[in-house]
């Protein structure tokens, strides 16, 4: 018998995740049930106060805004990514186009956000352009609002949506669209009834890759957002650093993690698709 070293191989990863993920996670959960220290830190006394504090309308509103921004930006990202993935998959210059998608990663994430500030700012490129062609008499406020947050989130997430979509579109048999047309479908019926259902796995992966990080956004709303676009990540940071309420920051983190986990479970369960579940049911029925 060959010895199975599988478990041994996973040890480094297991160790890494335990030290840097599980233990900190547990610390957060524990902190969320403690009392706040006077100058930050925690007092080792059980308390539910941090959770009670969450039921303030202000926090619930931030949660809603977070979900809203995440949903809208995910939707827009998908809307833009599907045609792009389709185009790349059908193009002859696939490799070059894929490279172009990846090129933004060569620049640091924060620098790319600052580039957007340079474009959208009151003295930025766009406003300069609008004023110089006489479109507007004075600058318009493009930055520090929800729109800027959504725009930059979509921009950041595009590669993460395009790549998994591309992988699925590339496998798609385009003669199916011709078959659908042949059988009487219009172009849009062929897209909605045949193309999209067949790249479903790619769509769900793209949603997971864009929606989940959007829920946990911190840097983007911090740098280009305003009062209307405070997200949970920003509130957590504020509680931790300015208000020095570690238990509250922890309870918020716990809630965010729970919401994220539920979202992931939801999407992952969608992933095998009706097709597979139905087949499975059928297989069972036969037995």
């Amino acid at each position: 018998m060959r010895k199975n070293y599988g478990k041994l191989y996973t040890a480094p990863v297991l160790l890494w995740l335990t030290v840097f993920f599980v233990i900190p996670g547990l610390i957060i959960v524990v902190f969320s049930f403690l009392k706040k220290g006077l100058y930050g830190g925690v007092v080792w006394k059980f308390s539910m106060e941090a959770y009670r504090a969450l039921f303030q309308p202000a926090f619930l509103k931030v949660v809603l805004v977070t979900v809203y921004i995440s949903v809208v930006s995910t939707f827009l990202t998908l809307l833009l990514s599907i045609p792009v993935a389709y185009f790349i998959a059908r193009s002859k210059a696939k490799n070059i186009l894929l490279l172009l998608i990846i090129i933004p990663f060569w620049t640091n994430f924060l620098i790319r956000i600052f580039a957007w500030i340079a474009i959208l700012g009151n003295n930025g490129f766009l406003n300069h352009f609008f004023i110089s062609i006489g479109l507007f008499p004075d600058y318009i406020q493009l930055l520090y609002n929800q729109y800027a947050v959504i725009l930059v989130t979509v921009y950041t997430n595009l590669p993460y949506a395009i790549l998994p979509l591309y992988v699925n579109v590339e496998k798609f048999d385009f003669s199916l669209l011709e078959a659908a047309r042949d059988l009487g479908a219009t172009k849009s019926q062929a897209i909605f009834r045949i193309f999209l259902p067949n790249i479903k796995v790619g769509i769900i992966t793209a949603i997971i890759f864009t929606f989940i990080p959007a829920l946990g956004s911190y840097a983007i709303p911090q740098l280009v957002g305003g009062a209307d676009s405070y997200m949970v990540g920003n509130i957590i940071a504020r509680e931790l650093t300015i208000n020095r309420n570690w238990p509250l920051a922890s309870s918020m983190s716990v809630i965010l993690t729970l919401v994220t986990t539920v979202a992931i479970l939801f999407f992952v369960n969608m992933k095998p698709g009706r097709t597979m579940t139905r087949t499975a049911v059928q297989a069972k029925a036969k037995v």
Partner: protein
Amino acid sequence: MKGSDLKIKNLSKSFGDTQVLKNISFRVKKGELFSILGPSGCGKTTLLRIIGGFEDPDEGRILMDNQDILELAPNKRGVNTIFQNYALFPHLSVYENIAFPLRIKKYTDGEIKEEVERYLVLARLQDHIRKYPSQLSGGQKQRVAIARALVNQPNILLLDEPLSALDAKLRQHMLIELDSIHDDVGITFIYVTHDQQEAMSVSDYMAVMNKGEILQVGTPSEIYEKPVNAFVADFIGETNFIEGKVTEVGETTGRISVEGLGVLTVDKDCPINVGDRVKLTIRPEKIRITKKEPVFATNPEQFNVIKGKVDEVIYTGFQSKFFVKVNAKYLFRLIKQHVKYYLDEAPISWKDEVFIWWNCDDSYLVEVSAS
């Protein structure tokens, strides 16, 4: 279902510098099973895609029941295609695949059920309703594709090499099934293939294509027995070519002299003159082979007898195929059917000296060029 009459008029199409279709014209009558036969790359699939509406021709017209259909989108033509890879929708069950065209037409669930069930029976798929394409065998996929195309009640069904993905035995079986489905539904079938046996065994009429041109249109037997040129003769079945020069012209026959074979008698299938260079085709099954020199009671002048040596014999039970070498230059291929109990015969074998002979009626002049 009714079926339609289809006229193709002067169709041309180029991709870049290569002209894939050159002035194609032919007519398919209502209810016919018409095949388009040609080697790969001859333009037959392009022709089919133009009829289906997936490509536009550069020139020419397509008339369906005397109405020009070129301007119509693929979904408005009353034409359905069976694609080479079947193009079944992988995310839909067999039932839903077949129901697809009806759902597009917004039929009610009840109507859909009735129609789909009718075609499930026709295609013998009743036991596979809930399966998905990935769970089907090649032949089953094929039948789903056919049912899905027919449920739309097309006037013309286009089949693009529908059997090429199946193994030889299944191909035979599906061919018979296709033929019987054609008889059942009575619509026009246009069948594209590179396999001449497939085409011959099911077609009412067939067109032979090469390099973007239609060389001949006719019934399978016309094309087999009266090929218009050497390419058609060679592409449709096996044959022997003999080239020679006309030396004598009679009323119904002529004589040609062939280097290495001597003088042969030929039927005047077309007008010939002394001095013309001609190409003769003689099918392997029409040449006889004997060890003894044959003696002819009537019309001995009609027969060509050549002495040769057996180069190879391929015995396949019901027949043997002989390769007979004549004067080290000509290699004749011929087939002998074993109509008698083979073990009682003294079989002709390798290296035997033999006589091969045929009636000049049975050969055909495919090419004549005046000197």
